[in-house]
């Protein structure tokens, strides 16, 4: 056993070994998977050791963060961090989150009631550094030391006892990328402190002041989306090719002709997908098109830059980028004159646009002027309308439902997807816990798209561990690979995480598991579909 309880000050010290190391023996057991048969942990390679500060846990999420070369660079980092923290505490620079931050910093009673809610902490074997309060306690110590009279006066007596140097900043930056921001911990806090959002505040400081963010989230995420049009790198012209390919491919596979409507002025609905769907799961936007056309819905998509990619990575670390994207989406919808904008199966995008955007978009772009909704209630409405005939027996295989944190815990959209499954999937069952208490897939807050260095290993072994265990438990009577099983995950990021950990744990070979969205299941059970829509061989 290697559970370590490193004192907080270790974060700023020269260390000989990481503050915590991941070892197989410590990790939580998974039903049906013997640890000895799991892909073994890769040792930390020389490239990482020689290039990065790897002393948090031997894993690197920020592959673009190289140690400073000179003392001046070190001092500049510290200066910028403190300047960022000062802005974080300022009502004008941080009006979006100040109340949440200040109450969180000042009134946590350190009872650790939240800890057992955290899938990362539990799956890791309860490594101290992953406790939801650990990273926030470090921030609190820095805040007290530099920004409170009691901290300046009484120092370690009030807990103002962490040294701030470049190592502190780099390890803290890594540490906030060991939290999925799922906010399950906040549900349990007796005081109402939100350690998830506090971790996000550290990310905001790093991104908005120092430009520190995983490449996939900022540079190749929001930046690419705002300058090229999509975080996938898809330009409007490339999008056109993709859509044509999906139309042809759908016809070849199903015999159904679809045509994605583009920039149709005055349509009822502007549908915005996570552009990752076009690239990785084209059957998902195709299924939407099949359903919408069959239901007689007046809808359109946009080929304006940003307008064909619903993602909003600012949700995870940057209010400026978040505001830019929601504003762009809303303006595109307004220009098209649609009645409402619906986000496809993507949790973070839905929350960013519908919930966070609700307090960024004002006046003529306010919620009352152009409605913004999740696709899930619409899908249930399509079923209820009776416009499409469904045959549930076409979905006669075990199905379980993953609740994306952003749409369920963070938006309260719980029943529409369940109502649909009750109607079209006779063998579906809940995983436990579920609904607003469900566990994150392990890919939340950007982890699903962060593929650099050895971070995917950490994600698959630790942050997604609870989810694979939940899934296997949901199917525990039918683990036999002779029975095909479907994990319904109506969220692009969740699907990305599931794709990776299914591969990591060899779920296809061992358990015949596949995954997909809700729309694919709906189309699969449509009476008018001559061939099965779900392909069991691909994932």
């Amino acid at each position, binding site marked *: 056993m290697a559970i370590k*309880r490193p004192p*907080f000050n270790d974060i700023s010290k020269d260390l000989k070994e990481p503050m915590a190391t991941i070892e197989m023996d410590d990790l939580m057991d998974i039903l049906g998977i013997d640890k000895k048969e799991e892909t073994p942990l890769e040792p930390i390679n020389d490239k990482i050791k020689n290039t990065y500060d790897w002393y948090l846990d031997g894993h690197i999420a920020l592959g673009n963060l190289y140690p400073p070369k000179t003392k001046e660079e070190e001092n500049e980092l510290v200066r910028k961090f403190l300047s960022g923290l000062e*802005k974080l505490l300022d*009502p*004008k*620079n941080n*009006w*979006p989150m*100040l*109340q*949440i931050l*200040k*109450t969180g910093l000042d*009134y946590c*009673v350190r009872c*650790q*009631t939240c*800890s057992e809610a955290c899938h990362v902490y539990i799956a890791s074997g309860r490594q101290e550094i992953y406790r939801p309060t650990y990273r926030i*306690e470090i921030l609190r110590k820095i805040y007290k030391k530099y920004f409170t009279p009691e901290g300046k006066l009484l120092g*370690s007596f*009030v807990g103002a006892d962490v040294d701030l140097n470049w190592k502190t900043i780099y390890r803290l930056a890594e540490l906030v990328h060991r939290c999925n921001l799922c906010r399950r911990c*906040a549900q349990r*806090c007796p*005081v*109402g*402190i939100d350690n998830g959002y506090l971790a996000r505040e550290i990310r905001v400081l790093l991104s908005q002041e120092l430009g520190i963010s995983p490449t996939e989230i900022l540079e190749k995420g*929001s930046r690419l989306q*705002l*300058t*090229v*049009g999509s975080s996938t790198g898809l330009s*409007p*012209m*490339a*999008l056109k090719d993709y859509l044509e390919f999906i139309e042809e491919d759908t016809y070849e596979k199903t015999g159904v002709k679809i045509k994605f409507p583009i920039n149709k002025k005055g349509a009822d609905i502007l549908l915005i997908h996570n552009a990752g769907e076009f690239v990785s799961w084209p059957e998902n936007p195709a299924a939407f098109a099949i359903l919408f056309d069959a239901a007689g819905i007046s809808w359109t998509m946009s*080929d304006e830059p*940003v307008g064909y990619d619903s993602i909003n990575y600012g949700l995870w670390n940057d*209010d*400026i980028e978040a505001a*830019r994207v929601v*504003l762009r989406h809303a303006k595109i919808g307004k220009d098209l004159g649609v009645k409402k904008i619906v986000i496809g199966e993507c949790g973070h995008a839905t929350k960013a646009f519908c919930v*966070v955007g609700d*307090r960024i978009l*004002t*006046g*003529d772009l*306010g919620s*009352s002027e152009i*409605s913004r*909704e999740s696709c*899930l*209630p619409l899908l249930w409405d399509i079923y209820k309308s009776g416009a499409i005939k469904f045959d549930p027996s076409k979905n006669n295989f075990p199905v379980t439902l993953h609740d994306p944190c952003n749409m*369920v815990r*963070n*938006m*309260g959209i*719980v*029943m529409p997807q369940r109502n649909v499954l009750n109607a079209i999937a006779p063998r579906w069952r809940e995983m436990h816990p579920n*609904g*607003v208490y469900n566990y994150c897939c392990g890919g939340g807050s950007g982890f699903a798209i962060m593929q650099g260095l050895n971070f995917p290993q950490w994600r698959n072994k630790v942050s997604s561990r609870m989810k694979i265990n939940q899934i296997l438990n949901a199917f525990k009577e039918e683990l036999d690979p002779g029975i095909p099983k479907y994990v319904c995950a109506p969220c692009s990021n969740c699907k990305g995480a599931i794709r990776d950990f299914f591969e990591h744990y060899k779920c296809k070979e061992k358990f015949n598991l596949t995954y997909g969205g809700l729309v694919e299941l709906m189309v699969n059970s449509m009476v008018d579909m001559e061939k099965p829509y779900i392909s069991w061989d691909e994932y």
Partner: protein
Amino acid sequence: MSQFMIYFAWFSVICFFVGSFLKLLKINNMPLHLRAELYPVVHDSKNSYGGSYMEDMNYVEEVRKGLKNIWVNDIIEILREVLFLDRVNEYNIYGLWFPSLLLHWGLYILFGWLFLSVFSVFWPFYFLIQLSSIFGIVAGAFGVLGSFILILRRIFSQELRLYTTPLDFFNLFLLLFMFLATLSTFLFDANHDILRYLGSVISFKTVNVSNFVIVQFFLFQFFLFYFPFSKFMHAPIKYWTWHAIMWDDALTMKGNKQDLILQEQLEYKQFWAAPHAIQGTSWAEVATNLKVEERGNNNGNKKTTL
């Protein structure tokens, strides 16, 4: 008893009320935050399973018509936590619930004791005095037991000790001594001086009282004075962390008060310094603009500026 204790009594009471009020006012007056609700939102009519109005198609229309929110649920849920520490009971694995419950009830009953005692100064009925004594003894016993067990837990649990600062121990020892002094006043038969002390504070006339009473009230008054500046404020803070943040699901409608507040906040200047931010512009400006060199940098010949 010196004049000091009389003035300190009034000073501590004023500090308690004014300090707490100002602290809470400061929190209340912070800018309107982005929506950060977390479900279940207890006033939502679908709170039994954590649902929300966003489960409905055209929910904006439903909001416009008026949601059937059950606002009393907000109060009930906060009271459940304040009175019974429900979440600690259900989820805390470090054995903190029972001693915390004792300590919290010790405090509530202690305030009840003070209230009854002040009442007894004006209306010295036998029943009232006896009742206040019972409150005092129970408060003392609960508080001593609760704070003592909490101190032990925080010393002997490796996990808790890591997070417990000397100030946290100071707070717990303050409570322990305060409750111990309260209990001692009754155990050593000095409680008859309590009303005399309170009477002297009210009338500003010094009287001689037992040292037990002086110590008891000194600690209690220090607690009152210290309360607004300490983490003890976590009790009233729940109204904001829960009601005003975690359950704040209010939708912005064009022209409503929230909309106007947000428009004002969007005009705040921000000075974030990362390369993609534009220092010194308002939030509205930074949201609608990219840096000049980033504009039009796409392969699709479409505009990307906002």
